[in-house]
């Protein structure tokens, strides 16, 4: 009898561990700090797939510390390729800035190896494409060159945790400049999937992609001294999200949208954990760190994509994306429910939020805005409105329950 109870106890304990995911990665000491695995139920996927080596992954970033103890065996070769500073794929071994090493850990920190953290893919094949210089900046042409090179190298899943300041709407109604869109179209045509960070401007991207950009022209009279520089607003264009591209916003541990994250369903597809998340650090081969940003939601999505594709290697890119969005992030995409500056009387966003909530069978009343401040900027009257529900909205978060 005692023996039976003991056996039942052991079996029950095992079932509980299985449910919490501890059974599948219990010897990586920092997995308990990686709350994102708990929130997105990574263990559901790990019960079926942990090996992503059949799906080549590219990390387009500041490089990767290939020698990191928790990454080394999951890297392809001994160094990545450098496209920063006008290079065209020369070898690079180091990640001076550290961003790329942190990103890579979410995708492919070796799982169940008894050290550090656990990536979505316990075994993987990752290449670093360095498109950001050691100070964390780059030109979009560097990234475009690298994306083009990766397409011909057979990279199937790529992560891109970079972007531009969008406040000036530099791309005339697009989320990216045309050169990047051209490269992404080529990559998409080759059957690859590219995952992007939505950015950390706290803005509704719907507003940015529906407005035209700005250019400047010099208008002169009869002499050069009479010239004026005239600011011209360009007409809006229809936003283009190339085939095979997924854009990820950042959520936080309570599953709401992180305050820094951009949002807006015309551009953003889903969210994934991105606040106070733990991964590999470039400080040493045994270092780990905690950081926040949509930069880190993106590789979590990329890792999930690699898992799905590795589990179903015959699927097309569109089938993988469909599985990702329809099965693992089925909630409505993040919308404009937060405190923000708006034009007084301009309540289109508020109405849109209400419509979306009504579609989901909820009352609009609790989503109402409350005006607290007004001011005049340029020729526009704007108001600062607060929303008591701001930051408490479910954000269409990635969840790997039901992984198949």
């Amino acid at each position: 009898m005692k023996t039976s109870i003991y056996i039942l106890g052991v079996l029950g304990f095992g079932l509980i561990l299985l449910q919490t995911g501890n059974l599948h990665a219990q010897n990586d000491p920092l997995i308990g700090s990686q709350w994102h695995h708990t929130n997105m139920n990574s263990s559901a996927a790990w019960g079926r797939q942990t090996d992503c080596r059949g799906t080549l992954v590219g990390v387009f970033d500041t490089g990767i510390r290939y020698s990191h103890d928790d990454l080394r065996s999951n890297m392809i070769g001994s160094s990545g390729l450098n496209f920063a500073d006008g290079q065209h794929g020369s070898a690079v071994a180091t990640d001076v800035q550290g961003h790329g090493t942190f990103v890579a850990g979410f995708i492919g920190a070796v799982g169940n190896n008894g050290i550090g953290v656990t990536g979505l893919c316990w075994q993987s094949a990752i290449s670093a494409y360095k498109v950001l210089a050691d100070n964390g900046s780059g030109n979009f042409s560097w990234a475009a060159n690298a994306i083009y090179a990766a397409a011909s190298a057979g990279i199937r899943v790529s992560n891109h945790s970079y972007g531009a300041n969008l406040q000036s709407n530099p791309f005339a109604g697009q989320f990216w400049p045309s050169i990047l869109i051209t490269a992404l179209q080529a990559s998409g045509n080759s059957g690859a999937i590219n995952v992007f960070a939505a950015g950390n401007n706290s803005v509704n991207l719907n507003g940015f992609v529906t407005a035209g950009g700005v250019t400047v022209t010099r208008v002169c009279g009869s002499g050069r001294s009479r010239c004026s520089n005239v600011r011209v607003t360009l007409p809006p264009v229809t936003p283009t999200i190339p085939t095979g591209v997924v854009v990820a916003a950042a959520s936080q541990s309570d599953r709401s949208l992180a305050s820094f994250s951009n949002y807006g369903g015309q551009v953003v597809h889903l969210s994934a954990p991105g606040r106070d998340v733990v991964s590999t650090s470039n400080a040493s081969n045994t270092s780990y760190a905690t950081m926040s940003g949509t930069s880190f939601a993106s590789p979590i999505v990329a890792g999930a994509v690699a898992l799905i594709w590795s589990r179903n290697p015959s699927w097309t890119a569109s089938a993988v994306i469909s599985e990702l969005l329809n099965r693992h992030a089925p909630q409505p995409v993040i919308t404009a429910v937060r405190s923000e500056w708006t034009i007084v009387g301009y309540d289109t966003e508020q109405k849109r939020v209400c419509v979306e909530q009504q579609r989901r069978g909820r009352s609009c009343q609790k989503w109402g805005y409350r005006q607290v401040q007004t001011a005049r900027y340029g020729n526009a009257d704007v108001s600062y409105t607060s929303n008591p529900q701001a930051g408490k909205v479910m954000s269409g978060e990635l969840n790997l329950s039901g992984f198949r």
Partner: protein
Amino acid sequence: MLGALLFFLNRSQVDAELNKKEALAETDNQSSSSIAKQKAELSLEASASFQPRIDHSKKLVDGKRADLAASESLDKSKAPKIIPYSRILNLIKKEKLVQKVETLTDEKGVRSTLSVYANGPTKMRTTLQEDWVEGPSGSELIGWTAMAADYVMIKISGSPAASELAGRIQEFGAKITPTPIPGIYKVHFDGTDPIRLYEIKDNLKTVAGVDFAEPDYIMGIE
């Protein structure tokens, strides 16, 4: 009963595991304080922002809307920081200024300053466009973008554009070089005058067969 016992056993195991992990984390190369410092340095700024939209239907009184006059005193402590000065912007502004021009104020009340810096974060001459409006406490920066100063990227499809394009490039005193991407070229020119960049890209866009002509914008980590 059994379930409660199993839960208790599991909880104890999890607690022990957490304690072990905390101990391991403390002995790791990065102490908790250094992690906290790094987190503070690298955590990305959470700030709200806005994009002005004009409502011309509202009448103004003394330059202000009557219904807003009483509340125009902005509580800065509650107002979001409109534009984050990112690391990239700071890197650019450390460089030597070559030339700076300003536009007229447009119909939305926005004006731009265009500055060419001798160097930039990507180790090349850089143009910085900053957009300003007059706010309650003076000029406020509402947006900025940075780009390579002395070349634009163009995409050519088809040959009919070749002769016309060559003429335009010669007219600008520019030269064209290929990139690793088929159909994509760089058009190089003297980027000392920031207006030149806008003029050239707008001009080249009008050439038949040129799909796009745009600056090589600067990007950064998110």
